[in-house]
């Protein structure tokens, strides 16, 4: 019985999947020049982050009291900070934290959001009411305060920061997934799957969720941008990952004390955050256009 259901299921699934929309979406994405440049930029940035210690001209934590707050020069391309540490090296190594926190936090948010949204949309009724009131409640908590509290309370290790950002930003994804699941759960192909005895969980994961995937991808891309901003804000407030591990937000926080003596120090890490987040936003926007179902149908 079970194997028969699986066979039928395979037939239905095969008929639904056409390869053409993927290539259509890809073509659409490629035609967006800003998005392509953003993608190349991000790939380059991740390469820099991976090989940071090899690329950085100096040890980012090496103190040189003979050359503090130095202006940019041939020796120190972006100058040095108040302890004489090389700013360029610190920016390069700092990319590691800033660039990974966003990705992992968003993965957590997408996982929680998909689970809650999927269950809520598919089963409706009481589970839906409970889960959605909970989601509303979470949304009404000013998430920034929540993150603040958790980090202040549990300490600001990399792990804690990633978890707390993920746990406090899944609500958007949950609502999105719920709406998509509701849109598809009563359609004929779901009915067909149910009639041949495919279990609920499998219907949800295998047949309905793929339809929500494009919206999830878009939300996730934009979410990474938000998560990077949030992490940098925490670091700025001194609640980020502790020194000497440098990241861009912490560098900025540091620079404010020297804003009169050495204003340039505040510029570089900020530009790094801005460009990275901007690239994610451009890509998210382009993906929204490329994966738009209205467009794909045409």
């Amino acid at each position, binding site marked *: 019985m079970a194997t028969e259901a699986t066979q039928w299921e395979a037939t239905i699934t095969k008929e639904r999947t056409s390869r053409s929309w993927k290539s259509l979406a890809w073509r659409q994405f490629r035609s967006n020049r800003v998005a392509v440049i953003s993608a190349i930029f991000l790939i380059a940035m991740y390469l820099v982050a991976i090989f940071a210690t090899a690329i950085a001209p100096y040890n980012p934590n090496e103190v040189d009291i003979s050359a503090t707050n130095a202006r940019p020069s041939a020796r120190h391309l972006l100058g040095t900070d108040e302890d004489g540490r090389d700013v360029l090296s610190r920016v390069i190594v700092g990319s590691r934290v800033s660039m990974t926190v966003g990705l992992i936090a968003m993965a957590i948010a997408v996982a929680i959001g998909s689970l809650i949204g999927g269950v809520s949309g598919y089963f409706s009724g009481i589970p839906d009411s409970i889960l959605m*009131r909970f989601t509303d*409640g979470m949304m*009404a908590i000013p998430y920034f305060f929540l993150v603040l509290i958790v980090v202040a309370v549990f300490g600001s290790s990399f792990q804690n920061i990633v978890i707390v950002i993920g746990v406090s930003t899944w609500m958007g994804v949950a609502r999105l997934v719920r709406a998509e699941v509701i849109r598809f759960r009563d359609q004929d192909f779901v009915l067909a799957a149910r009639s041949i005895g495919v279990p609920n969980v499998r219907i949800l994961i295998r047949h309905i969720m793929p339809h929500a995937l494009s919206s999830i991808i878009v939300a996730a891309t934009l979410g990474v941008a938000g998560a990077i901003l949030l992490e940098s804000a925490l670091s700025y*407030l001194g609640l980020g990952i502790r020194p000497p591990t440098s990241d861009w937000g912490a560098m900025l926080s540091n620079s404010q004390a020297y804003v009169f003596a050495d204003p340039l120090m505040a510029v570089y890490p900020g530009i790094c955050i801005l460009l990275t987040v*901007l690239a994610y936003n451009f890509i998210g926007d382009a993906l929204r256009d490329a994966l738009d179902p209205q467009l794909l149908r045409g």
Partner: protein
Amino acid sequence: MISYVIRRLLQGVLVLFIVSLVTFFLIHAAPGGPALLTSPELNRDEVAQIKENLGLNDSIPVQYVRWMRNVLQGNLGTSYSTLTPVSTLLRDRLPNTLLLGGLSLLLSVIVSIPLGIASAIRRNSVLDRALTGFAFLGVSVPVFWLAIILIIIFSVELHVLPSGNMFTVGESFSLVDRIKHLVLPVVTLLVLNLATLTRYTRSAMIDVLGQDYIRTARAKGLESRTVIYRHALRNAMIPVITIIGVFLPNAVAGAAITETVFAWPGMGLLAVNAADTRDYPVVLGATLTVAVIVVFSNLLTDLLYGVLDPRIRLD
């Protein structure tokens, strides 16, 4: 209508209950407890005595019930570090945050609606492209960095505006001085809100302008201006108002960070400092207050739908 308001109010109360529960349990789950307990001047007995006095030795649910009972009677407790009643702290700080947040939200609505409309009417024009670019920058820029850059330009280099605080310390009250201190924080928040709101007004307007009744209005010879401002704008405002509601927690976050950069004595700065020292009553009071504001504004935006669009029945 009345039953709708009552039901929404009840839902709001439920949401606030969840907020209080989550915040309370999170903060009390902390290993270590409030910062004042780790003060090196205290010996072990004194720490135990303080813990006992603050009721920190009871189980967390018991503490929660006690705290909630007090809150319902209007007593938010006393700050651990300054020994001031939390309600006094909030009364001092809340108006400052409302001034900063309200003013920048108001200004951004006033500016973003005409910009969004202009952008929607002339799609792909130079203006539209410029505004799109600006919107992307606005949502991508770290608030605190923007604030620092503004300080560098206007305080450090040009010496025209102060770099922080609400007024010049030691000087008597002067309106000009107050306004000068407001400019940079308001502009920082304005950039943030403006980017989002302009984009939403634009897309809502584009949607509405494609509708049949707009074509009808144009076909019967109405002036373009009348069509846009009397027929289209009203309907385009519905999604925009939703966004203002949804956007609020974001705006609160932005305000909290902005306050910290400019040392603006508001709720955000209060919460940041309290979280740092684990001043439980203050953190809880601040979070709850902000949550009340968010819930209330969401209710208000929902009620506004009915005013803007008679087709939407609230029941």
